[in-house]
């Protein structure tokens, strides 16, 4: 047998090897230019609590945005990179991560966190060190409020806001001629009680008074006692603020005592944990709000198909959208400021020029000095479960809602 030159197969193998090695080679190239790479940070739960799937979905969105931005040559001529810090949903760990990202990793901005409570625990840090934070998951109203009246505020958000949702569902209750008496049902966690505070204030602002106000524990499997009291008070519309599993248990308890008021609830009902607890039939009862409609535009559908293999559940898609849009808005602000230092980026975010076609909506002046939430009442999409799938919800009340109905 004579010694031959490389065969076609050998050439193929060589190409394959080069292709396989490419990410590593590219990574090395990036590492060599690390002096120039602009670091973004993510701090949030990626593994420990049931909401970790939302955190992971947001990271998928952020990474997709960074990929797109780097394809266009990065920001201010520098590539972007993402530094991840898992806070395991624990506030002390989250606080530690925040200092680590800002002081050691020197990130230009932080995205996250997953759990609202953690944002409330550390928001004094980015505000003190003047590093912008873009929220994309936690929905507590107070996250984006300044620490005190008139203080500089570095907390921004592209995502759901509890207060906005409460205002919108209360608007629905007020407008619906079949609402009758309203009652509140809330979970005793920080999330539920924050929602209750919003419910009480917004009801007052819209001139509604609850006939009953009951609470339940996040791990309860039987809420029949609380529901019996709502029924005794003649409640026909229940406004519920809780996480996915307890809302599911609530629906099951309603079936036990055969009492089905109209249920308007928090967006947690979009979670898989809700339908798992409620079962597909009872899951069809409540209506709730999301920031991304299930009737996806072609633009959204393309993004959905691009990232779907990397997220845990269809319902987590909205977090990827928030993460993507938030990252894009940050990049746009850095570009506009011409530099990446915190105060300049914050100024630019509060006065963003031009429009940005994001996946949740087209942003036109998304933030101002006083408004740090990019998505408002008009950006809420009515949703429900149909045949074990999320679906867009509409009825004559929804169609009749006008901006002036959203008071509080």
């Amino acid at each position: 047998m004579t010694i031959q030159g490389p065969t076609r197969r050998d050439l193929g193998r060589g190409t394959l090897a080069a292709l396989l090695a490419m990410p590593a080679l590219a990574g090395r190239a990036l590492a060599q230019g690390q002096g120039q790479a602009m670091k973004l940070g993510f701090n949030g739960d990626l593994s420990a609590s049931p909401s970790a799937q939302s955190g992971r979905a947001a990271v998928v969105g952020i990474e997709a945005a960074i990929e797109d931005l780097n394809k266009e040559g990065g920001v201010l001529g520098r590539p972007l990179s993402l530094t991840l810090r898992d806070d395991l949903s624990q506030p002390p760990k989250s606080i530690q991560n925040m200092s680590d990202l800002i002081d050691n990793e020197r990130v230009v901005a932080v995205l996250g966190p997953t759990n609202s409570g953690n944002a409330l625990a550390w928001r004094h840090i980015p505000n003190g060190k003047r590093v912008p934070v873009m929220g994309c998951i936690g929905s507590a109203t107070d996250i984006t409020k300044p620490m005190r009246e008139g203080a500089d505020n570095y907390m921004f958000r592209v995502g759901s806001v509890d207060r906005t949702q409460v205002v919108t569902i209360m608007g629905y209750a007020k407008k619906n001629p079949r609402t009758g008496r309203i009652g509140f049902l809330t979970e005793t966690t920080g999330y539920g009680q924050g929602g209750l505070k919003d419910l009480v204030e917004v009801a007052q602002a819209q001139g509604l008074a609850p006939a009953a106000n009951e609470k339940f524990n996040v791990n309860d499997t039987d809420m029949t006692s609380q529901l019996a009291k709502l029924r005794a008070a003649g409640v026909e519309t229940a406004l519920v603020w809780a996480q996915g599993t307890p809302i599911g248990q609530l629906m099951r308890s309603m079936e036990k005592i055969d009492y089905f008021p109209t249920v308007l609830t928090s967006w947690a009902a979009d979670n898989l944990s809700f339908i798992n607890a409620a079962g597909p039939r009872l899951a069809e009862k409540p209506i709730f709000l999301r920031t991304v409609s299930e009737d996806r535009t072609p633009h959204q559908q393309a993004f959905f198909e691009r990232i779907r293999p990397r997220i845990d559940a269809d319902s987590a898609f909205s977090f990827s959208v928030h993460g993507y849009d938030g990252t894009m808005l940050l990049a746009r602000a850095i570009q506009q400021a011409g530099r990446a230092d915190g105060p300049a980026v914050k100024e630019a975010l509060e006065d963003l020029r031009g429009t940005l076609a994001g996946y949740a909506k087209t942003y036109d002046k998304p933030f101002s000095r006083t408004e740090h939430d990019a998505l408002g009442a008009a950006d809420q999409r009515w949703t429900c479960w149909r045949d074990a799938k999320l679906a867009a919800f509409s009825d004559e009340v929804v169609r009749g809602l006008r901006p002036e109905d959203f008071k509080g």
Partner: protein
Amino acid sequence: MTATLLQALVSGLAIGGIYALIALSFSITFTTTRTLNFAQGEFIGFGAFLGVAVLYALSGSGEGGSFAALTPAASEGFRYPAATLAVGVALGVLGLLLFLVAVRPFAGKPGMSWVMSTIGFGIILQSLGLAVWGPAPVNMPSPFGSEVLRLGGAGVRPQEVAVLAAAVLLMVGLDVTMRRTRLGKAMRAVAHDPGVAALMGINVGAVMLGAFALSSALAGLGGMLVAPIASASLFMGMGIALKAFSGAILGGLDNPRGCIFGGFALGLLESGVALWQAQWREIAVFLLIILVLAIRPNGLFGRRALDKV
């Protein structure tokens, strides 16, 4: 009003049955080894997830649905009993492991190292579970369907009746075993005095191993029973174990029947207080426990003073 009270009674008995079962499992290890498995909560959650995994494996591809959303078909026929048996055996083995690595090296020695080592064992177990199955709660369908049964105006699900029935059967079975059989007598002898029991020719080590295997198997069964009601979650067991432990303390840790009483009492108390003001429930429950312990430090039916080391 009667319907509401009846509903509270039914709901209280259903959850009380689980508290009683787990309270009994605490009592089993305490009476024989003077130690407790503080990882019992993690064992419940781990058992439930293992059950989901077995059901998923048994139902094969297609008809059983995905791992996160098993369809009712996944629990039909022999599958749920088979999964329950598998979980019982697996958790029993896990209990042996727990005893060998986390309890025996420290039992009987001064200090409370076994408290930390069992808690640590639980954290390791939970972290392993999180790594394998992820943090999201998953659905376990009930083998008895999910149609509501009506009892004089109150509604109850078949699984809740099954939980109560299974818990009562297990508890009666264990009670008879403890009081009537040679094995039970050996266990009680070890509980009374391990030294004397050993002199009487009882294999004390084997009895202690058996106690941990049984206690852990009960936690696994508890997880299998509760999962169709509460969704399987690696975090589901903590609340149950804490309440069950409270029930055991209330009834007297060293008295198995007292533990069962304590568990049921706690379940009924919870649903009773919820009729009045649900947010006062935990406060009322734990105030009562403190009150009982102030008057009877060994619980309502406890007899012996706790060892002070």
